[in-house]
Each structure stands twice: as structure tokens, then as C-alpha cells.
């Protein structure tokens, strides 16, 4: 250039197509990024090395309430909730030291309206080619809703727990109140049985102060005679985890022993036994009552025994004079048969009466002895498996085959080899008496029928006569002692036969029934359970 005049123009041309294209591309990519950045549903921001917000998107503004302009004057530290800042700074430091290149964090920001906003924050560092951090990219998700729900849940659970705790305390108080005020003695024991808690009722029950027993052992207070079983029980509650209930005598503060019943059970915590509890009651009154009952029973037993012995003695002692009288009467009859008395017939008749009456007294004595022995529990009872058909046959052959009036027992066994579990002597006695009654009350009315058959798992014996029968209204009383039907006049009997039949049948697990019609006859039914292998 000379004198301000242009002399030449130098031009240079450069092909910048490539550059242009690159710029365009960059621009486009930048636009794309911006678009993505601005329209993202996540809050996004770029933060520089000085912690200042360089760029924020709309969502970010929305989440935290600040405008873009306002963001530019703030650092992230300014709007981070104080309590969450330390974690944030620590991560940043780690990034700056190159230890990490990104982090995730849940934290609270301070909203423009001063409220706290919970967010999930992801931060990654953007580095230049030298590896130096240029800025940070932050992504923010609003999790305040979730956090609120979590918080609400937490509060709810806390509230629940608080209520539970309250209830527990209340329950504890109730139990304590119960324990403290119960009349029974309530104790909690360590597993070595030593006292952990003793209810105040011990004061009135045994005269001790509850405190003085803590740490001591119950066995120190147990009567020496009860000590063995008590120790065994304590052992078994811990070893075998058994409940126990035991009656023991405990020593009071005056040194006297009082009867108690104590129940104990293990106390578990998380399924592991940690202690056991006992509840103990004064049973002096019960023991007294038991003693009275026992004494009374003993007295009754002694009285029964005395009566049995008395009856037995009378039976023995009367028997010999009866024998002498009876034998004498028989002898007189013999003499009469060989002499020529005018009144021989009359004398013979009188002597016969003496013999009959003696027999009656003896029969009565036998019946009374049988009953009194049974009352004292002395009836011998040895049940075995036996064949009832055979027993019936045996009784009939021995005692009823040669009746004076030529009558017989018509036997019908509908079942054979019927086995029962019974005492043979008692069964024989029963059958003898039933058959003997049947003959006695049916003189001149034909044979006596005996039917034996089984019904389900029972065997039934019916003994049927066609005799005088029993008035309906008296039938229920027949099994009572000394009861005789009003139409039995002139027929000898003790009034004890049916009573003994019932007694013996019951002993053999059987039952006896009676059906009768006045003037037509009587059916006595015996039922026994069949023997099963």
C-alpha cells in the first residue's frame, strides 16, 4: 500500500468445504444434543469446575423451581441440603483425584420455595484430551414422591412399633399387677431354680419378704420328706421340658410346714428356655378335706371289715350247733322209723320242719356272708376264658337232673362253644340260683327252659318258667336285699338271691334282666360279652 492507495490486492482462496461441513455437522450435533438436553424427562445440568451451574434443562428448573438465570448465580453447594453435602463433596473429590469417573447418590436439594426435594443424582465427569475435568454432567430424577412414601411407611411402622411397645409395657404392667396382687405365690426362676422374682403374696403365705428370697433356692424351703420328688420334678422340667404339678410342704418363716401345690412351666425366649415360672397355692384346706375323706374311708373300711368278720364268725359259730340240731333231727327220724309211736307221723313232720328251718337259716347265713364279703371287697374273682355251654351243662347235671317231681331243664343251645371271660364259680352260683328260682316258683307248671344264643358280641342266656310270675309293680324292687314278692308266701327264700345274682353278674361284666307276667311265668335273662382273642 502506498500513500493510502491500494496498489494490489492479494487474494487467497481456501477450500473450506470440509470445514464448513464439519461445522455444520458440529452445529447439528450440538442442536441435537441441546434438543435432547432440553427435552429430556430427566433433570440435566452441566456444572463447571467451580461447582457453578453452566447449563440446566427445563426439567431441572421444574424440579428445583429456579429459573435458568437464577441457576447461573448459584453453585450446587448453595442449594444442597446441609446434611447431604458431605457425601456429595466426598464423591467430587474422588472424581478430581481420578479415583472414580462417575457416581450415584440420593440427596436432597433446597427448592426455591425452601422445601427439600429428594433426587437421585448421577454425575459423570467430562474430560479434555489431557484428561483434565472440563465439567460435570449431572442427571437428576425427582424421587421425592417415593421418598415421601417411604417416609410415610417408616412413620407408620414407627407408630406401630411405638404402639406395640406401649401395649407390651401395658401388658407387662398388668401381669406385674396380677402377680403382685394374686393370692397364689407366683415366681420366676433362673434355670438353676433360684428365685428371680417372687410375688408379694409370699408375705401372707409364708411370712417372707419377697426380696429376701431372690437368688435363693426353693429346695431350701421344701420339707425333707418331699425334697426327693421335688428335686426330681425340677430336674425334669429343665431336662425333659415337662410341665409339673406337685404337692409339697414348704417351711414358713416360723419354721412350720404348710401344704402347697405348685405348678411350673418353662419360659422361652426365641425358642430357647431362659427361665421357668411357678405358681403355688396353699392347699391346707384341701389336704384337710382329703384327710377327712381318707379317715372316713378308712373307718368305713374298718367297719366293713368288722362287719364281715362278725358275719363270718357268726356264720362259723352258728354252723356247728346247726349241724348238731340237724343231725339230731335226722337221728330222731331214724329212731322213729324203727319204733311204734302213736304220734310217730306227727313227730316226724315236726322233725322235718326243724330240718327245713335249719336249712333255711344256713342258706340265709350263707347269703349274708356272701354279700358282706363282697362289701368288704373280699369276693374272690379269678376270671378265665371259659365255655359257657359246658358250665350250663355242668350246673344242670350236678344240681337239677334229679328233681323230686321229675321235672327237667329243657336246654337249647343255639350257639356252640360260646366263650366268655369270667369267674367260673360266680357264673355257676348265678346259674344255680336263677335255675333254682325258676323251679321253686313254678311247681307243677312243667319244665324250665334254658336257651343260650349269641347276639352281636354278646351271649344271652334266657331261663324261662311257666310259674306264678311276679306282680308288675314289684318287679323293679326284686333286686333289692330282703325283698320278696307278695305272692311268694309259702315258698322259702332269703330275699337275697337276685341281689347276689346281680352282684356276681356285674362282676363278670354281664347284666341281668327280668320279665314276668303274673300267673304266666318269668324269664330271667343274663347277658355277657363274648370273649374275643
Amino acid at each position, binding site marked *: 500500500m502506498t500513500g493510502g492507495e491500494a496498489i494490489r490486492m492479494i487474494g487467497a482462496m481456501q477450500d473450506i468445504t470440509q470445514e464448513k461441513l464439519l461445522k455444520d455437522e458440529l452445529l447439528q450435533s450440538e442442536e441435537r444434543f441441546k434438543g435432547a438436553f432440553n427435552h429430556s424427562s430427566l433433570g440435566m445440568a452441566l456444572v463447571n469446575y467451580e461447582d457453578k451451574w453452566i447449563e440446566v434443562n427445563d426439567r431441572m428448573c421444574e424440579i428445583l423451581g429456579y429459573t435458568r438465570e437464577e441457576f447461573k448465580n448459584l453453585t450446587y453447594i448453595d442449594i444442597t441440603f446441609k446434611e447431604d453435602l458431605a457425601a456429595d463433596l466426598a464423591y467430587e473429590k474422588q472424581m478430581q483425584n481420578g479415583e472414580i469417573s462417575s457416581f450415584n447418590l440420593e440427596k436432597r436439594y433446597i427448592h426455591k420455595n425452601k422445601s427439600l426435594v429428594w433426587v437421585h443424582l448421577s454425575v459423570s465427569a467430562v474430560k479434555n484430551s489431557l484428561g483434565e475435568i472440563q465439567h460435570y454432567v449431572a442427571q437428576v430424577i425427582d424421587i421425592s414422591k417415593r421418598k415421601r412414601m417411604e417416609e410415610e411407611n417408616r412413620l407408620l411402622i414407627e407408630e406401630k412399633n411405638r404402639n406395640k411397645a406401649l401395649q407390651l409395657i401395658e401388658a407387662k404392667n398388668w401381669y406385674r399387677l396380677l402377680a403382685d396382687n394374686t393370692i397364689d405365690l407366683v415366681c420366676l426362676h433362673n434355670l438353676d431354680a433360684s428365685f428371680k422374682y417372687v410375688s408379694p403374696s409370699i408375705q401372707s403365705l409364708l411370712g417372707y419378704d419377697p426380696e429376701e428370697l431372690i437368688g435363693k433356692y426353693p429346695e431350701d424351703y421344701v420339707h425333707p420328706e418331699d425334697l426327693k420328688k421335688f428335686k426330681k420334678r425340677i430336674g425334669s422340667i429343665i431336662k425333659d421340658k415337662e410341665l409339673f404339678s406337685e404337692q409339697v410342704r414348704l417351711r414358713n418363716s416360723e419354721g412350720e410346714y404348710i401344704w402347697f401345690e405348685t405348678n411350673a412351666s418353662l419360659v422361652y425366649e426365641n425358642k430357647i428356655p431362659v427361665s421357668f415360672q411357678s405358681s403355688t397355692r396353699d392347699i391346707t384346706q384341701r389336704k384337710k378335706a382329703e384327710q377327712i375323706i381318707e379317715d372316713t374311708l378308712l373307718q368305713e373300711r374298718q367297719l366293713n371289715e368288722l362287719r364281715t368278720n362278725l358275719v363270718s364268725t357268726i*356264720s*362259723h*359259730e352258728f*354252723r*356247728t*350247733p*346247726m*349241724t*348238731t340240731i*340237724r*343231725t*339230731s333231727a*335226722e*337221728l330222731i327220724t*331214724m*329212731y322213729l322209723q324203727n319204733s311204734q309211736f302213736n304220734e310217730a307221723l306227727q313227730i316226724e313232720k315236726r322233725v322235718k320242719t326243724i330240718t327245713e328251718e*335249719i*336249712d333255711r337259716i*344256713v342258706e340265709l347265713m*350263707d347269703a349274708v*356272708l356272701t354279700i358282706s364279703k363282697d362289701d368288704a371287697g373280699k369276693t*374272690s374273682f379269678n376270671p378265665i376264658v371259659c365255655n359257657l355251654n359246658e358250665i350250663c351243662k355242668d350246673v344242670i347235671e350236678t344240681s337239677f337232673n334229679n328233681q323230686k317231681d321229675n321235672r327237667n331243664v329243657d336246654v337249647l343251645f343255639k350257639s356252640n362253644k360260646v366263650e366268655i371271660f369270667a369267674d367260673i*364259680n360266680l357264673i355257676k352260683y348265678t346259674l344255680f340260683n336263677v335255675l333254682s328260682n325258676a323251679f321253686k316258683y313254678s311247681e307243677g307248671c312243667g319244665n324250665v327252659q334254658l336257651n343260650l344264643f349269641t347276639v352281636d358280641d354278646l351271649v344271652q342266656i334266657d331261663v324261662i318258667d311257666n310259674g306264678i310270675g311276679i306282680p308288675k309293680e314289684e318287679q323293679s324292687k326284686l333286686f333289692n336285699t330282703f325283698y320278696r314278692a307278695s305272692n311268694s308266701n309259702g315258698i322259702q327264700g332269703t330275699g337275697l338271691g337276685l341281689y347276689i345274682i346281680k352282684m356276681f353278674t356285674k362282676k363278670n361284666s354281664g347284666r341281668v334282666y327280668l320279665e314276668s307276667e303274673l300267673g304266666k311265668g318269668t324269664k330271667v335273662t343274663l347277658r355277657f360279652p363274648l370273649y374275643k382273642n
Partner: protein
Amino acid sequence: MTKVLIIDDEVNLRETIAEMLSYTGYHVCIAKDGIEGLTKVVEFQPNIIICDVMMPELDGYGFVEQHKNSKYANVPVVLLTAKVEQKDEEYGLSLGVKAYIRKPFTFKDLQEKISLYANKV
């Protein structure tokens, strides 16, 4: 003639039985208890012994025990007693006596047992 020894402490009874048996053709001897009974067995050498059980000094069971071991053990014994229970009879029979008759008895009973068990003359 069949010889019967009756041992019973009850005087009226033993005499009545003795009278009855004498009247019906037996040769009878009596003793008041087991001890006397043992001597009478030797003296009288009966064909059968009818013995009571409950007696002072030596009772019927005691008598049977000693008799069993004596020279005259072959003389059969029948017990005649007021002990009427089943177990008494079982015990009596277990001692080896021939029969057990309960008081009161009938003449028929007694006669049957004597003719059944008495040693033959």
C-alpha cells in the same frame, strides 16, 4: 364192721354223729382234738377218720399234716368243717384228704363218703 374215728371239739356234735353212725352199724370212736385224735388212731386203728378243722390245741389241718407222716398214713381222712369257702376246700384237698364236707351235712352225704373212701375191712 367199718371203724370210724370222729375228731371234733364240740361234745354235742361228736356224740350225735357217733350215735348216728353207731345206730347205722359202724364201730365208732371219738376224740376231742387233733392230739387226742393222733393217739386214738394208734389205739383204735380206724378204717376212716372224720375230722373237724377248727379245734383248740391241734386243729384239723395240723392233724392231717402229722397223720400223713405217721405209720397210719394209709387211713383216709375226710374233713368235716364250718369253713365253707371255696378256698378253704381247695386248701383242705391240697393236704391230701379224701373229701371235704361242709357243715351242716346230711347223713346221706356222710354215709356216701364213708362207703366211698373207708379202707375195706
